[in-house]
């Protein structure tokens, strides 16, 4: 039995997205910037994708900038906002559990003379709204908070945070890294008070190399890639038409029968947790109910290194990830786990992450396998 439980690392590309992409690659391959009809065909794919995505967010299609994925979206939001607004202030706020695609550009900006406040989190990975309120200053130009944490599935209070930011400093921009949240939650940036929001295509059954940044109209942002002036000068480079088409299709599919899909994910998560929570070796990091992300479980197992458990599960056909897979194959220490105080489990934590295609049978098989493997490997704990 092959069970893919690493959907927060990447997902299988949906058939609908794939078919659209094949057409855009082999049939309607025109460059959207070309003046002839072939170019127009390419442009149409982008227009369609824009419309499809805009509907899911209840925003204007013109407020979307297509990028090469989540990392670029985050970089564009943070570097672009900082560059465009540095005259209003040099202060930024973020959290200590962000993905490196946010924390690394923040660090870069610190080197350039900006100051950054890092909000702490509690044992569940939740920020404190009070701390946020105190952190926002008149010279704060950008606040960046992730919607769903990629390692433990903590869901941050985005709407409340937006309110507090606007109360303290109406001109501060709010960026949300929604890479693990889009498709799992109904997100309406305008209603929530978000100016900038990052999304990646391959986390929602779209293709790798696709993504977008939502930029609320009139938001001051500078491009970080310069060239032929595509996408209203905000993101030069010939548009990745097949990628954008696939992304649009995947976004549309993600919000079909949305409630049912979300409920299904919570059922899977609930069943897995219920299956192992009584075992003495199992420690679930973060919250476990509907106040946590529906698709992510962070499981720490006493005494078994995450890589070992990962490969042992792999031998049984179950694919999970060790810590956060996105940060490459280096055994880097997880900042999220450090921040929530899970020091004891820094190198003994695996992440299980679902998608709508997973089934309860797969979850049961995973529970059964864990119950067999863990005691077997615990016999050989390193002393």
């Amino acid at each position, binding site marked *: 039995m092959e069970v893919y439980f690493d959907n927060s690392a990447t997902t299988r590309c949906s058939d609908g997205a794939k078919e659209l992409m094949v057409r855009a690659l082999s049939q309607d391959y025109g460059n959207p910037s070309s003046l002839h009809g072939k170019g127009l065909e390419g442009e149409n794919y982008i227009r369609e994708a824009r419309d499809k995505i805009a509907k899911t967010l209840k925003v204007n299609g013109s407020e979307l900038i297509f990028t090469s994925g989540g990392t670029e979206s985050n970089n564009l939001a943070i570097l672009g906002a900082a560059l465009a607004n540095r005259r209003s202030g040099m202060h930024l706020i973020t959290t200590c559990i962000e993905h490196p695609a946010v924390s690394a550009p923040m660090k870069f900006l610190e080197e350039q003379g900006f100051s950054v406040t890092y909000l702490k989190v509690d044992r569940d990975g939740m920020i404190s709204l009070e701390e946020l309120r105190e952190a926002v200053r008149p010279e704060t130009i950008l606040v960046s908070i992730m919607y769903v944490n990629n390692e433990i599935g903590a869901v941050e209070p985005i709407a409340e945070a937006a309110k507090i930011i606007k109360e303290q400093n109406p001109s501060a921009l709010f960026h949300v890294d929604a890479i693990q949240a889009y498709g799992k939650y109904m997100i309406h940036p305008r209603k929530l008070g978000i100016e900038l929001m990052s999304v990646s295509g391959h986390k929602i059954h779209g293709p790798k190399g696709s993504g977008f940044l939502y930029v609320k109209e009139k938001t001051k942002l500078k491009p970080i890639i310069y060239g032929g002036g595509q996408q209203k000068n905000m993101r030069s480079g010939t548009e990745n038409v097949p990628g954008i088409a696939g992304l649009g299709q995947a976004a549309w599919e993600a919000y079909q029968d949305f409630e049912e899909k979300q409920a299904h994910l919570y059922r899977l998560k609930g069943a897995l947790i219920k299956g192992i929570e009584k075992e003495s070796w199992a420690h679930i990091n973060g919250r476990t109910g509907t106040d946590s992300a529906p698709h992510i479980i962070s499981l720490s197992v006493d005494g078994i290194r995450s890589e070992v458990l990962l*490969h042992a599960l792999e*031998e049984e056909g179950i694919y999970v990830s060790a810590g956060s897979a996105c940060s490459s194959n280096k055994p880097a220490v997880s900042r999220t786990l450090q921040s929530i105080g899970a020091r004891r489990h820094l190198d003994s934590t695996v992440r299980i992450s679902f998608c709508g295609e997973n089934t309860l049978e797969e979850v049961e098989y995973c529970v059964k396998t864990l119950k067999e493997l863990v005691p077997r490997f615990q016999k*050989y704990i390193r002393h």
Partner: protein
Amino acid sequence: MFKAFLIKYGEIGIKGKNRHLFEDALVQQIKYALKPVEGEFLISKEQGRIYIEAAAEFDYDEAMEHLQRVFGIVGICPVVIVEDEGFEHLVQDVISYLDKRYPDKHKTFKVHARRARKNYPMQSMELNASLGEKILEAFPEMKVDVHQPDILVNIEIRGRINIYSEVIPGPGGMPVGTNGKGMLLLSGGIDSPVAGYMIAKRGVKIDAVYFHAPPYTSERAKQKVVDLAKLVAKYAGPIYLKVVNFTDIQMYIYEKCPHEELTIIMRRYMMRIAEHFAEETGSLGMITGESIGQVASQTMQSLAATNEVCTMPVYRPLIGFDKQEIIAVSEKIGTYETSILPFEDCCTIFVAKHPVTKPSLKVIRRSETRLKEKIDEMVQRAIETAETIVAEAE
């Protein structure tokens, strides 16, 4: 401008009656090294010289890069070979050679002519003087310097005439295959590929064995070892790599023996299994990357304890090297970047906090008796289930 190389070899030229064997092996190794290079090459032996002539256009830099990895080669001379059509022609050929090769003529030179064919109408000294004169006429900017010339123009009168002025150093050593075969214990670290390289340099063909411990070591760790074997194969020729599944043995030792002795006992079983394969495939010795005192398992006492289990000689070419010296070689031969990729190998996973550094043979032997119930069967199974991968240079 060059269509041919003249290959100089040192040590193998003095091997008496066996000389032709060494030369044949060198020709074989050159052929193997040039196989991936685009173009067709004719390789010939002639009176203590090996010539490589390209049949058509070829990539000079690529060919040179590959030749510089062939053990046994001391120098590679890009050479122009001309027919003997009289002295006047030779003058023209030499002048045209210098003109093309040295666009900047502000250089000193010396002509060094040799006659392997003694019936050439001019003697060497006479050739030197006359050619020097003609060169000075053609390029007034050039000057003669017989002590330390910038350009040493070599003229070799053989059946045909060789003109060359550069000797690009080769790696030295002896052609692989002229000194038997050895079994390398390849781990995935920095040291063992270097050890393999150094023994191969002495003309030894290399086989290798890697101990894999899934799920404690990943597929990527195994891929890393295969990649390392491929890199060593650039010098040593194709390497037959045995991948042994070592998990059961390791767990069993872990279960039965004191943890601080684990590494030593584990290594003793690795040596036993490696020796089995070495005997089976005709290796005359085993090769490890050990260096005295580098880690607990490489103290004199530990080495004695691991050495005790095999009868075959164990070659440890890095035994007196510091880590920095080993790293320098691994950087030079191009294995360092791969070696430092962060995947665990099976030596590091069960390491005790305080492993023994001065194991007593008596104690280790006694600990091993606790394994007697199942270990032979496990070793047998590990040997039977080993996978063979042929690692060829890419």
